[in-house]
């Protein structure tokens, strides 16, 4: 046993000697590789990984800086044109009013009909729900129903005046029927209109990091504002105007839709055959719409 132990000790010593010699010989490469490895693991890899993030962060900051810089210059322009800004704001608020202001709307409608030379027969209003296509912009709508008597030319003039009226009003639907005045020998038109006037209250807040979309010097904006300035502005003449509010009646609408569907079903295509062999279906003179509007009529005008 002691002989065997002695041999093992000699082998171990020999191995350690060779190892020491190898380490001593390769000390420089070992240290150099070690340092290189440490650099790669502790600095190069993490830095390389964070480089794109840092570059993106810088780009975002530069982009934000440019946005803010543009915004500052836009705001300076707006500040220089402060009067124009306020004037334009006043105009758009007259055209698209912030609140329903029904008496003023009714007064405008009355004045338009008078200006067109029409005889106003009835006037009523209701608060409409937001129109389907306007839901995105959150408009509320006042709906004005009017019944007037006029000539055809006056009717066209009324339409034109409505289209040129400063407070935005649009005709959603209308109808007219002609009656002969045998005493005077002229035909008179009885019309009923449904006018929609949207209103929109806006309350913006300053959002520092977001750009301002408007460019008050752009030709589009200037032309549009010029168009608005060219509209007919009506003074509020009759402050005591009275009209009753209508409540929407869903049942009537349903009946109306059914009637339209029936009309469409009965419709036949145009053609010479029809002209040669006239259809004997009697012309439907009854008008459910007129009837319903008459029932709703609440404001006789003297």
């Amino acid at each position: 046993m002691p002989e065997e132990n002695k041999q093992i000790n000699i082998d171990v010593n020999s191995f350690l000697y060779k190892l020491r010699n190898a380490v001593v010989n390769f000390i420089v490469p070992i240290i150099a590789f070690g340092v290189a490895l440490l650099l790669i693991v502790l600095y190069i890899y993490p830095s390389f990984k964070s480089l794109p993030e840092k570059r993106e962060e810088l780009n975002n900051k530069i982009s934000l800086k440019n946005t803010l810089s543009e915004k500052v210059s836009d705001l300076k322009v707006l500040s220089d044109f402060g009067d124009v800004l306020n004037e334009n704001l006043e105009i758009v608020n007259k055209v698209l009013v912030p609140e329903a202001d029904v008496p003023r709307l009714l007064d405008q409608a009355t004045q338009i009909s008078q200006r067109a030379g029409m005889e106003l027969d009835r006037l009523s209003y209701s608060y409409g729900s937001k129109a389907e296509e306007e839901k995105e912009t959150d408009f509320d709508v006042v709906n004005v129903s009017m019944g007037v008597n006029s000539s055809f030319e006056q009717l066209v003039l009324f339409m034109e005046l409505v289209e040129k009226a400063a407070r935005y009003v649009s005709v959603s639907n209308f109808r007219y029927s002609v009656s002969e005045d045998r005493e005077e020998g002229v035909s008179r038109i009885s019309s009923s209109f449904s006018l929609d006037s949207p209103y929109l209250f806006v309350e913006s807040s300053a959002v520092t990091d977001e750009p301002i979309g408007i460019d008050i010097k752009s030709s589009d904006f200037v032309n549009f504002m010029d168009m608005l300035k060219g509209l007919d502005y009506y003074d509020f003449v009759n402050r005591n105007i009275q009209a009753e509010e209508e409540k929407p009646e869903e049942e009537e609408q349903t009946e109306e839709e059914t009637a339209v569907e029936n009309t469409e079903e009965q419709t036949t295509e145009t053609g010479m055959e029809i002209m040669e062999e006239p259809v004997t279906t009697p012309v439907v003179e009854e008008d459910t719409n007129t009837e319903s509007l008459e029932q709703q009529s609440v404001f006789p005008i003297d």
Partner: protein
Amino acid sequence: MLDDINLIPQTEIIEQKRSKIVSSSTIFSIVILLITLGISAYLYTTLSKIDSDIKKTETEIESLRSDIKSMADIEVAARNLDKKYNALKSLFNSRVKYSLLLKEFEARKPSDVSVQSFDVKTGQISVSGTSGSYISVKNLMDNLLNKEFQDGNPSLKDVFTSVSLNSVNLDKSTNDVKFLIVITYQERKLQGL
């Protein structure tokens, strides 16, 4: 023959080989070390520059923000104007000008046709009336669909897309032809004009 004779002892040959390996590995490791040092230096300067640019930009941003905040009133007014401007633009662009529709219909109506009722809804008009003959009713329908119609508004030449005769009959007492037609029209032709 002389080349084949190697008189160097075996131990010396091993020593020379070891020495060669040591020197080449030393050179290789130092080159690697230098490359990693170079990359590290590049990354350090690049990151330092980016950091310094970020700090500089942040300072400028803060300065711009304070400028903007000092003009908050103008910003609010501008945003209000922007919202209303866009809303009005969409309203005016989508408004249907019925005055043009009425004029166009009147222009295309033969003189001996008289309208008794005219009911306009979205995209559809129901018209009832009387005329002196069936031919006049036919002419009215043809005129409405005629894209080459001379007396109308050129921009509305194809405003009416279809005309359907719903009913027609002869009133024997007056010899008048009573009719009811349903017309479809393109709203977009009457918008934004």
